[in-house]
């Protein structure tokens, strides 16, 4: 009897694991450089420093080559977005949650669609690059609100 119980348990565990996996949609999907194209401007994404990604409430993923494209996409689309991700400027093609990021705008930052936002995962990096890039610090909310 006890071993049967164990099997049931393991099956239960397995199913709960599947359930977990299928619900696990708040994770970012990596952007494939030079292969994925921007869902707003149609350009192929080639620079892993300025890419962005969002997940809609329905769980669909959209990828962008520029933070500006993502925000404009979000403001024109009918399905509301759930999570926003942006590429960490300091790394190569790594997505971090937009809300937790620190932004810089302008200066010598040249992003593919001239949004010219760079995102950093810590305020230390943001400060370091602020003088280097001669840019202006911003929060995610300010970035998001800069488009109508």
């Amino acid at each position, binding site marked *: 009897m006890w071993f049967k119980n164990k099997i049931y348990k393991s099956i239960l565990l397995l199913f709960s694991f599947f359930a977990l996996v299928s619900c696990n949609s708040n994770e970012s999907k990596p952007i494939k*450089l*030079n*292969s*994925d*194209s921007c869902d707003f401007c*149609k350009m*192929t994404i*080639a620079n*892993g420093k300025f890419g962005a990604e969002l997940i809609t409430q329905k769980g669909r993923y959209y990828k962008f080559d520029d933070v500006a494209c993502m925000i404009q996409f979000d403001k024109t689309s009918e399905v509301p977005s759930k999570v926003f991700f942006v590429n960490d400027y300091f790394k*190569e093609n790594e997505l971090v949650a937009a809300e937790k990021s620190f932004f810089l705008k302008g200066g010598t930052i040249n992003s593919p669609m001239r949004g010219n936002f760079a995102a950093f995962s810590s305020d230390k990096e943001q400060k370091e690059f602020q003088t280097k890039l001669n840019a202006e610090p911003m929060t995610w909310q300010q970035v998001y609100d800069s488009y109508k």
Partner: protein
Amino acid sequence: MKKLICILFSLLFSISNAKTIQVGSNLSVKKIKKALQLAVDGDTIVVNSGVYKEGNIIINKKIIFLGKGFPILDGQRKFEVVSINADNVVIKGFKIINSGYASLDDPCGIKVYDRTFVKIENNILDNNFFGIYLQNSRNCLIKNNKITAYGKQEQLIGNGIHCWKSDNLQIIANKISGHRDGIYFEFVTQSIIWRNISNKNIRYGLHFMFSNDDAYITNVFKNNGAGVAVMFTKNVKMYNNYFEENWGDAAYGLLLKEIADSYIFNNKFARNTSGIYMEGTSRIKVEKNVFESNGWGMKIQASCMENEIVNNNYRKNTFDISTNGSLVLNTFNSNYWDKYEGYDLDKNGVGDVPYHPLSLFSVLTEKTPSAMLLYRSFMITLLDKSEKVLPSITPDNFIDKTPLMKSLPL
């Protein structure tokens, strides 16, 4: 008479004032940097063949910089190879290899910083991050260079010829392959791109952003990751180009986005996923082009208006035209469509019944791409035929009123 001779001599003297400095491993001047120190404005430096690993070579005098037998300038994967910081520089006949690789600053084979009248001719650039980079420059010529890189997907690489905030450029007869974009224009005006071959680049063969009043004529764009993109631009002339074999989900022969007042004349679009993709374009004339063996000849999004599509040949495309809306704001006139099944009783060469270039199925697949599975099934053929007679899903005013019976000799 004496005076004249005097003047002549002084003239001769002033000409011969400009000296030539020879650089070579068995000559007195062995280093290019040394020669650059010795030179003054107007001099010529001739570099004999050999391998020169001198890091970043900065040219800050108005000199003529010539290579004899293609001397190799090696950046050893660490440096920008040649930086031009003076006007009127000529650089000719070098083989420039292995520029640095960095993602924050953009090291190049040759970079021109805010200069005018620079000529870059007959060079071979191999395995550089960016090939030739013009920044804030005017009246420059880039001619007969061969630019090769070995970029792969999932990897950061620069553009072959990258021009930024420049004016009056001539980009002539270059061969570019393996870069991110073959030729990239951003904020470049009054410039011409002529007789270049841009193949097998990772992203676009040619890429225009915010660059008004330019022309590109007789270029070949083949086998690039996503074709050619002209975006956010006004008044561009595109003549006699070949857009070929750009296959892929997001690949287009020519991607037009937010462009206006341009003229597309006598180009050939062959074997692309989509010949032309248009979004937000207005007042463009597409005349005398050939669309052959494409998946879609033209994809015109509903955001396009006042475009004129005249006298083109559409042959062997799976779909000639597709669109995502029902509003028709563009005109189609006197094109040749190989799918036209009408008749010409008065024998004037023009079909007597209008042609509907939009097939039912192209509208369906636009809405649900997976419906493609059913293509060429019996039901679809039947529906397509009935749709041609009685348009229900396709907009009924989306027509060519004067379809040609014979293809145009293009």
